[in-house]
């Protein structure tokens, strides 16, 4: 039997189109559904978790910033306090520096040399001294040259020419005093310098002295402490903002023993030691 399909092909096209449309409809719905499900099941929770982490970190960051601000406020209070403390400590240290300096100078001073004047402006020490012989001056000078921890430069003026004390222009002083001579004959080169200042002139026959001046530059200059908040000096005592007094002018080289400032009476140089003889005894 021969099967002949006499129906036109256009009859099936309609069904094919309908089936295709349904298929595509289903696919579209599936794609949309998959998209929505993926978004809500995976992406949204991921975003929420990340936002929670960000919020927590920001909260902690705010706390840290506030704590740091507090820390900076406390730190800002310290410099003003520390400045006052440093100034007080520096003043107390400063008051001890000049006595120590003079004691150090005395330690390096040859025992047969006596000072009649000593002052310092913080940068150098100037001394008016006297000795009985050139040898003593020489030993004194050599001692001072060895004080390299204390001085960077030592200069001496007033070394006399010949004859000693007559007409030399170096300013040498020869002092004839009616009081005690040095007790000569001690060990030479001793660094018993405090003795040169602490012990008085011993009784004895007249002696000639050679006066001279020594200037020593300090290796470590001494500077007066200053408080940053002080105003410039007005020169008027008791008024605000006056600075600490400046160093007094140094004595001229080769001059006689200086009087203290203010005109207060000063005992004459080389005053006799107390009777009874032992050096260093107080009256």
């Amino acid at each position: 039997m021969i099967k002949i399909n006499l129906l036109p092909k256009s009859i099936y096209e309609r069904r094919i189109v309908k089936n295709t449309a349904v298929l595509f409809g289903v696919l579209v719905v599936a794609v949309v559904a998959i998209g929505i499900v993926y978004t809500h099941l995976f992406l949204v929770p991921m975003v929420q978790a990340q936002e929670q982490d960000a919020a927590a970190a920001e909260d902690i960051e705010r706390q840290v910033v506030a704590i740091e601000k507090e820390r900076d406020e406390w730190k800002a209070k310290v410099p003003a306090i520390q400045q006052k403390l440093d100034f007080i400590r520096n003043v107390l240290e400063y008051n001890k520096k000049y006595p120590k300096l003079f004691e150090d100078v005395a330690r390096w001073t040859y025992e047969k040399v006596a000072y009649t004047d000593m002052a310092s402006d913080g940068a150098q020490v100037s001394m008016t001294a006297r000795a009985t012989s050139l040898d003593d001056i020489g030993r004194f000078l050599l001692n001072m040259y060895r004080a390299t921890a204390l001085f960077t430069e030592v200069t001496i003026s007033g070394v006399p020419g010949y004859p000693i004390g007559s007409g030399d222009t170096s300013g040498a002083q020869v002092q004839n005093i009616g009081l005690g001579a040095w007790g000569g004959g001690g060990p030479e080169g001793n660094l018993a310098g405090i003795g040169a200042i602490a012990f008085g002139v011993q009784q004895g026959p007249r002696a000639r002295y050679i006066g001279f001046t020594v200037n020593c530059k300090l290796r470590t200059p001494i500077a007066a402490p200053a408080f940053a908040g002080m105003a410039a000096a007005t020169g008027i005592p008791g008024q605000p903002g006056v600075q600490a007094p400046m160093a007094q002018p140094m004595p001229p080289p080769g001059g006689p023993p200086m009087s203290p400032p203010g005109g207060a009476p000063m005992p004459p140089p080389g005053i006799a030691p107390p009777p009874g003889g032992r050096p260093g005894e107080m009256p």
Partner: protein
Amino acid sequence: MAIAGAAVFFLQVKPQIDAYKAAQARYEKAVVKGDEQARAQAIRERDQAITAFQVAQALLDVQMKRRMPSLNFSRRDIGMLALWKEQIKTLGPLLESFAHDENVTVLQAGFKINAPPANPNDPIFDQDVLVFPLGSVVVSGNFKQVMANIRRWNNCQRLIMVSPPRLAGISPRLVVAYDVTCYIFPVAKGGTMIQMAGGGAGATGTPVTPPPTPQPMGATP
């Protein structure tokens, strides 16, 4: 279908991706200081700063109690009266009494302090430190005694700075001369101006006096 897929992507997926990226950027920015370690570190540093302040304040309190009068200028009028009492009645006698060292012969120790300001709005009350140049001290003794006399000013009940001293003479009758200056830190600087008192020192004409002349003492060696 492509259009549906694109629509789903742009309407659903992309906004979430963008939101995630924004949240991640916020987190990365905040996590630099936003973790527990940074907070613990910040707390430690704050505590250290507080401790440093308390230590410094305690040390200063010791010195203030030992060497400073209690001058508080936050109330300008009351502070001015306190300064009058300090400057006129307390400071001079206290220092002159201290200057009398039994170990040396005091040749000169007369201090002169100018009158304090009479206007509470004077700029002096705004200063961090009050400076009083007091005058000269001249003492006589042997070397050790005069050096000890200079160091002794560190034990005074006020903060005193000694100028570079000058030595003259021969021990045991060494004469040393030096100037002394007193420094006072007020507890608090000037507060609100007092309207009724008018302007500052210039407006009220606070008198200006010449520097003091040291008065020699009648002490005998």
